[in-house]
C-alpha cells in the first residue's frame, strides 16, 4: 500500500501547487520558477520514459492453464512409437542427405535397424500363421522377396537397409518420403492384408506423429491447484506505458493533445482500481437421463444465479465435465453478465460411456467492468446432480467363465494337496490322530499294519482379476477415445460379476495407476465394492499415471498379495511387450493365468496396422505358451465374446 501512497501524495501536492499557480499567476513569474519549470518538465519527462520502458519489459501475470472440458485427455494411439521411429528415420536420413554423411555408422542399433528387426519378426510370424512356414523358411522367403507381389514391400526385406536416395532428397526445401520409409509402409500394409484385417491403403502416406496423442504430456485434466487467483489481464500495465510515453512525448514535442490523451488511460486504470472483480453466484445442474446406457446422449443443464448485491459485468463459466466424458453438442462454457437476483441457463450434450463420472468443480472467471483484472476460482454446485453413472450393471444372463480352468463348481478344482475328500489319492502309514473313518481296514486285514487313505482335497477356486493400467497401457484407437484401461475396467467388472454369480470368490487389483486391491471373497457387499472401485476413477483413472511401471516390481507386489492357488485374469490391451511380460511372469509365479485383451488398434492406418500386427504377434506368443487369451473388441459387450468362447 505504501508503494502506492507516496505517488498519490506527490500527485495531489503537484495538482494543488499547479492549481495555486494557475489561480495566482504572479507566483510563477521570475527567473527561478522558469528554471524550476524547465527542470521539472525535462526531469519528469525523462523519468516517465524510463518508467514506461521498465513497464514495457515487465512480464504479465503468468497465464493460467484453463482446462478443456470438451474432450478427454488425449491418449496415445497404438503404433505411435512405430510412427515416431519412421519419422526419426526420415529426420536422420534427411540430415544424412543434407550433410552428405554416411548412412549408418558403427553405432549400435539405428532406428532403421530397429524398424527392420521389428518388421522382420512380424513378417516371420505372419507368414508362419498364414502359409504355415517355419521361421527359417519364412525368413528365406522374406529375404528372397517372393512373399508378396508388391515390389516396394518386397524390397524392404530383400534390398537391405540403405536404398539409394532419390536425387530430389538432396535438394533444399524438398522433403520427399525416403525410400526406406515408403518400403516399410508398404511392407506393413502387405502384412496386414495377409492377415485379412482391413489393411491401410499402401498408397496412403504416414499420418503426422503430432496427431497421435502425446500421452500425459498435457498435464492434469482439471488444474485447480493455483486457485483462487486474481490476476491482471495486462491492460493496466500497457495503459500505463502509453500514458507515460504520450505525456512525455507530448510535453517534449509541444503537443498538448498528446498529454491530454493521458486522461483516457487514467480513467481506464482508475476504473480497474475501483471495481474488484467478484462474482457471488450459485450453480445448479441437472442431468437427463440420470443413468444412461453407454453411447446415449445426456443433456446437461446448468443454471447460474447472481446471489450477490452487485451486477456481475463479465462472467465466464467452464462446467466441470468429468474427464471420461466428451461433449457431443453445445458448449460447456458460458459467458454472461448478470444483474443481482437474475439467472441464466445453458445446455449441452454429453456422450455417456461406462463408469461413474464425478463432475469437477466448475471454474468461474469473473472480470471487472473495465476488463483489467479477473478472478479465477472454482465454485461448488449447490443443488442438483454432480455425478453420472453409466453401465457396470449386474447381468442376469449366463455365459462361460473367462477360462476353462476357472471352474465354476466348488470342489471341481484339484488343489494339489491331499486330505479328506471323495477321490482316492494315495495310502500312507497311519499316524496317531488320523480319523478312524479313513483307516484302510482291508490293508490292516491283509498286512496287519494300520494305513490311512489320502483323498484329493477339493478346494473352491478363487480368481483375481487384474487390470493393466500402466502408463503404456493408456492407448486409444483415436487420441480422444476411451483408453484401453477403462475398457479393461468394464471387462474386469463383467468377468467378476459373472464369477460371483457362480459363487466363485473374486478379488480385483490394478497394475500401474491407482492402488486398488480387493482380496478374493464373495457376497453382495463385495460385488458392490468391486463395482464401486471399477466404475469410479480411483482404481483405473482416466488420466495415465506419471510414472511407468517396472514389471518385476508389479509382479512381486501381486504375488505377495495372491495366495498360491488363486487364478489370475489379466485384462490388458497388450500394446507393448511389458504386457506380455506381466502375464508370463505371473504364470511363472505359479498362478493359472488367462488374458482378456481389449483391442484398441485401428488397422486402417499404417501405424495402427503395425500395432495390430504386433498385438496379434503377442497374442499368439501367449497362446503358444498355453495361456488362454480372449481378444475382445470393446465396441461389443464382453458377454457376447464370452458366450462365443463357450460355444467354441
Amino acid at each position, binding site marked *: 500500500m505504501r508503494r*502506492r501512497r507516496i*505517488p498519490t501524495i*506527490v*500527485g495531489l501536492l*503537484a*495538482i494543488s501547487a*499547479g492549481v495555486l*499557480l*494557475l489561480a495566482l*499567476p504572479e507566483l*510563477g513569474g521570475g527567473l527561478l*520558477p*522558469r528554471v524550476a519549470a*524547465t527542470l521539472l*518538465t525535462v526531469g519528469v519527462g525523462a523519468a516517465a520514459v524510463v*518508467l514506461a520502458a521498465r513497464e514495457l519489459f515487465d512480464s504479465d501475470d503468468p497465464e493460467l492453464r*484453463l482446462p478443456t*472440458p*470438451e474432450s478427454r485427455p488425449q491418449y496415445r494411439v497404438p503404433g505411435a512409437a512405430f510412427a515416431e521411429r519412421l519419422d526419426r528415420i526420415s529426420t536422420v536420413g534427411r540430415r544424412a542427405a543434407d550433410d552428405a554423411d554416411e548412412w549408418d555408422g558403427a553405432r549400435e542399433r539405428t532406428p532403421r535397424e530397429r524398424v527392420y528387426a521389428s518388421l522382420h519378426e512380424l513378417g516371420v510370424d505372419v507368414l508362419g500363421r498364414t502359409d504355415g512356414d517355419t521361421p527359417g523358411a519364412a525368413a528365406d522367403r522374406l529375404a528372397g522377396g517372393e512373399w508378396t507381389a508388391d515390389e516396394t514391400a518386397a524390397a524392404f526385406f530383400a534390398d537391405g537397409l540403405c536404398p539409394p536416395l532419390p536425387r530430389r532428397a538432396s535438394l533444399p526445401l524438398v522433403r520427399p518420403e525416403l525410400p526406406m520409409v515408403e518400403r516399410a509402409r508398404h511392407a506393413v500394409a502387405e502384412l496386414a492384408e495377409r492377415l485379412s*484385417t482391413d489393411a491401410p491403403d499402401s498408397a496412403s502416406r504416414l499420418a503426422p506423429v503430432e496427431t497421435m496423442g502425446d500421452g500425459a504430456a498435457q498435464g492434469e485434466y482439471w488444474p485447480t491447484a493455483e486457485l483462487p487467483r486474481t490476476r491482471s489481464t495486462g*491492460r493496466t*500495465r500497457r495503459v*500505463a506505458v502509453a500514458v507515460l510515453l504520450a505525456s512525455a512525448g507530448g*510535453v517534449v*514535442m509541444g*503537443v*498538448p*493533445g*498528446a*498529454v*491530454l*490523451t*493521458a*486522461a*483516457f488511460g*487514467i*480513467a*481506464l*486504470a482508475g*476504473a480497474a482500481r475501483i471495481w474488484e472483480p467478484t462474482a457471488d453466484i450459485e450453480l445448479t445442474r441437472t442431468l437427463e437421463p440420470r443413468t444412461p446406457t453407454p453411447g446415449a446422449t445426456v443433456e446437461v443443464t446448468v443454471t447460474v444465479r447472481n446471489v450477490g448485491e452487485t451486477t456481475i459485468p*463479465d462472467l*465466464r463459466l467452464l462446467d466441470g465435465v468429468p474427464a471420461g466424458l466428451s*461433449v457431443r*453438442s*453445445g*458448449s460447456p*462454457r458460458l*459467458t454472461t*453478465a448478470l444483474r443481482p437476483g437474475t439467472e441464466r441457463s445453458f445446455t449441452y450434450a454429453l*456422450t455417456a460411456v461406462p463408469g461413474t463420472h464425478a463432475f469437477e468443480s466448475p471454474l468461474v*472467471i469473473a472480470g471487472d*467492468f473495465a*476488463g483489467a483484472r479477473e478472478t479465477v476460482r472454482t465454485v461448488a454446485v449447490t443443488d442438483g446432480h454432480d455425478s453420472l453413472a453409466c453401465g457396470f450393471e449386474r447381468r442376469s444372463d449366463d455365459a462361460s467363465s473367462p477360462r476353462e480352468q476357472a471352474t465354476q463348481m466348488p470342489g471341481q478344482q484339484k488343489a494339489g494337496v491331499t486330505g479328506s475328500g471323495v477321490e482316492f489319492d494315495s495310502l500312507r502309514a497311519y499316524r496317531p490322530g488320523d480319523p478312524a473313518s479313513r483307516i484302510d481296514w482291508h490293508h490292516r486285514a491283509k498286512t496287519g499294519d494300520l494305513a490311512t487313505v489320502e483323498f484329493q482335497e477339493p478346494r473352491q477356486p478363487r480368481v483375481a482379476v487384474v487390470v493393466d493400467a500402466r502408463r503404456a497401457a493408456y492407448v486409444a*484407437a483415436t487420441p480422444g477415445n*476411451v483408453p484401453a484401461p477403462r475398457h479393461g475396467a468394464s471387462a474386469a467388472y463383467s468377468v467378476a460379476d459373472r464369477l460371483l454369480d457362480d459363487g466363485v470368490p473374486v478379488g480385483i487389483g490394478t497394475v500401474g495407476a491407482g492402488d486398488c486391491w480387493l482380496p478374493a471373497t464373495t457376497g453382495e457387499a463385495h460385488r458392490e465394492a468391486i463395482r464401486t472401485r471399477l466404475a469410479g476413477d480411483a482404481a483405473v483413472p482416466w488420466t495415465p499415471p506419471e510414472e511407468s511401471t517396472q514389471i518385476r516390481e508389479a509382479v512381486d507386489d501381486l504375488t505377495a498379495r495372491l495366495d498360491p492357488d488363486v487364478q489370475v485374469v489379466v485384462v490388458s490391451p497388450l500394446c507393448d511387450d511389458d504386457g506380455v511380460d506381466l502375464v508370463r511372469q505371473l504364470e511363472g509365479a505359479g498362478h493359472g493365468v488367462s488374458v482378456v485383451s*481389449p*483391442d484398441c*488398434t*485401428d488397422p486402417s492406418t499404417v501405424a495402427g496396422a503395425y500395432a495390430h500386427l504386433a498385438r496379434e504377434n503377442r497374442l499368439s506368443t501367449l497362446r503358444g505358451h498355453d495361456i488362454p487369451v480372449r481378444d475382445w*473388441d470393446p465396441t461389443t459387450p464382453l458377454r457376447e465374446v464370452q458366450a462365443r468362447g463357450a460355444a467354441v
Partner: protein
Amino acid sequence: MARPSERDRRFEPGLPRFSTGVSAVSVLAVFGFVASDPVSLAFAVVGGLAVGVGLLRRIEFALTAGVGGLFVAVLQAGADGSPEWVLGATVPVVLAWVTARHALRLGAQVGSVASTLRVELVHTVSVVVLVTAGGGIGYLVYRSVTGTPSPLALGLLLLAVVAFTLSLR
C-alpha cells in the same frame, strides 16, 4: 478393433464477432480521421493491418504494436491541429485496442460455440462510458489551464499525471 463411435466436439478458440466488429469499425474511423495527411494515413494503414493480423492470428504483440501505429498516426496528423481533435481521434484508437484484446481473451477462454454477445455489449458500453468520462474531465481541466502564463503549473500537472499513473498501475 475399436473405432470412435462419433466425432466428439473439440474446443476451438474463436473470435467473438461483435468485439471484432467494433474494433474493425474503430480502425476504419481512425483511417477517416487521418485521411487528409498521407504520412499519417500510411502509419494508420500499417497499424490497421497489424491489428488485423493480431486478431486473426491471435498475436497480442502485433495487436498492441498496430494500435501504437494508429496512435502515432493520430499524433502526427494532429501535431499542428487542436487538442480537441487529437482527443476525439484517440477515442477510436483506445476502443480498437480495448475491444480487440477483450475479443482475444474471450475467444481463448470461451471459444466459438458459446454466445458472448451480452458480455461484449456490457464491456464495450462500459469502456465507452469510462473513456468519455475520463476524456471529458481531462478536457475540462485542460480548458481551465489554457492560456496560463505559468510553465511551472504545466510541469506540475505533468508530474501529477505521472504520479497518478504510477499509483494506479
